[in-house]
């Protein structure tokens, strides 16, 4: 009994030390350094026009990418779990592609397709649409890197739920849409919510792919993560810390939201 307890205690200490060295200490240090010059300084630093614009751009891109990937993600999950067609395994694999490919490669491939010398570049330029070095490119890159989250969270839940509840709804007179809205969606809602939280966190924090397609135009195509990098490179360390702290606070907020929406036991 006691040896078991001390073993458990040891494991906990190791886990906490590991997390502490890798996560708590660096993040804590960022927060400490941020607020060292004083609250007023921090506030001034995150309310400059460039910072406000970066914050707005990040939010806008997130608000485009996350709802889109939620709807398409649920659809894709339904197709993967319920569909019977050739190439299903291929689709299942392709969904994971954004996880497998480095974000920088994703950014470059977007330039190959939509850049000025890319496949659609000249046609789009003629139509007056600029994608690369503009917000649509940033949105595309973000959509691409956050694509798998909702699908990957919903697929196992859909598998576990099965089709009997849906069949029961049909025999009770529900149309396919009513069945989806009243039975399927509520059954997978925690999976969807979890996927949304992860997508949001990634959309806000994405750096690599966005960096390649953005062009780093301050006040125009600079997201929060790019702002941190730009300030850091310009030796504005305090400004970089302040923007980082803002990112960290948003991330903590999303994690908190995830904990709060976790299903209550009796409904599980």
């Amino acid at each position, binding site marked *: 009994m006691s040896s078991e307890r001390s073993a458990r205690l040891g494991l906990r200490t190791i886990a906490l030390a590991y997390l502490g060295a890798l996560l708590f200490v660096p993040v804590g240090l960022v927060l400490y350094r941020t607020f060292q010059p004083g609250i007023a300084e921090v506030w001034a630093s995150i309310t400059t026009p460039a910072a406000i614009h970066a914050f707005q751009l990040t939010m806008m891109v997130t608000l485009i990418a996350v709802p889109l990937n939620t709807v398409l993600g649920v659809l894709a999950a339904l197709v993967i779990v319920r569909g019977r067609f050739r190439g299903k395994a291929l689709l299942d694999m392709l969904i994971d592609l954004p996880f497998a490919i480095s974000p920088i490669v994703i950014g470059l491939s977007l330039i190959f397709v939509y850049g000025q010398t890319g496949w659609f570049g000249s046609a789009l330029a003629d139509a007056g649409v600029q994608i690369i070095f503009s917000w649509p490119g940033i949105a595309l890159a973000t959509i691409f890197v956050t694509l798998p989250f909702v699908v990957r969270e919903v697929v196992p839940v859909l598998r576990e739920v099965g089709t009997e509840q849906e069949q029961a709804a049909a025999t*009770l007179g529900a149309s396919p849409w009513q069945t989806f809205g009243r039975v399927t969606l509520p059954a997978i809602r925690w999976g969807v919510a979890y996927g949304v939280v992860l997508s949001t966190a990634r959309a806000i924090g994405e750096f690599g792919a966005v960096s390649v397609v953005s062009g780093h135009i301050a006040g125009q195509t600079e997201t929060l993560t790019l702002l941190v990098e730009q300030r850091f490179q310009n030796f504005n360390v305090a400004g970089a810390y302040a923007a980082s702290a803002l990112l960290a606070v948003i991330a903590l907020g999303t994690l908190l939201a995830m904990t709060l929406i976790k299903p209550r036991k009796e409904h599980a």
Partner: protein
Amino acid sequence: MISVTGVSKRFGDFLALDDVSLEVPEGSLTALLGPSGSGKSTLLRIVAGLETPDAGAVVIDGNDQTGVPAQRREIGFVFQHYAAFKHMSVRENVAFGLKIRKRPKAEIAARVDELLGIVGLSGYQDRYPSQLSGGQRQRMALARALAVEPRVLLLDEPFGALDANVRADLRRWLRRLHEEVPVTTVIVTHDQEEAMEITDRIAVMHDGRIAQVGPPRELYEQPADDFVMGFLGPVSRLGRRLVRPHDLYITADPRDGALEAMITRVVHLGFEVRVEVVLSGGASLAVQITRGEAEALELRSGDIVWVAPDRPGGSELVAPRPGGAPDASVSV
């Protein structure tokens, strides 16, 4: 009334239903009885519209339903594993079909209360399915199916996932429920006892076909073939014939048509006694007699007795098969 004509269904290489026709009379409680893989569930799901037949037609109350989706068939379906809506309370589960039909709130509330009373779940309306026992979940599922006043009620192995005790209770309860709410009901089961106990009619299914349809007693007493006979109750093989163990008689002395046998085991089953014997040819079979008869004969294992398929002193004795020892075996 349900009538199924010429229905066939294939899953890949497997022929699940082979030109099946069946009539289910209005207000009856009919069982589809058969071993797993006999096609009984597939037939039920085709009647419900949850599967589409490759050929044939399904007519309910005179309306051809063959191409009609499940949602417009006005049927009630109960699944083996309840298919409870886990995110809804008992009340919301039962009210589901009525809400879909946009009935007034007061009417829904009254109907749900009435049904929960019928299925014995009054007071459970605010619980969630995970807080109910298996038997309670299935009763909730029945209330949910009955709420919309279906033209037919289809039950797919409804008690298959329950304990033996709960099963027996629910069986009797379903029979009473059917007397209270006499909706045309089809129940799929592989349990012959269940089918015999609660239904008016049984359709025995075997290899995607219907082997025989009739009242339980008729099927038991006049089975169309060996399969039906074997499926509806224990049988002993005597020569080429299959007989019920309780249609065999034991005497201490030889008589015409009786076969010599040695008792291997005497099993007391309460009022009845099962005597397991081995014939001179080496085949074993079972004989079921009353305790009184067993006591009068003072049967003990190792005794030599005489077994015949008719009452001692009766006429029309069946001669043993010509050509030596009968090939006897028992299958119970």
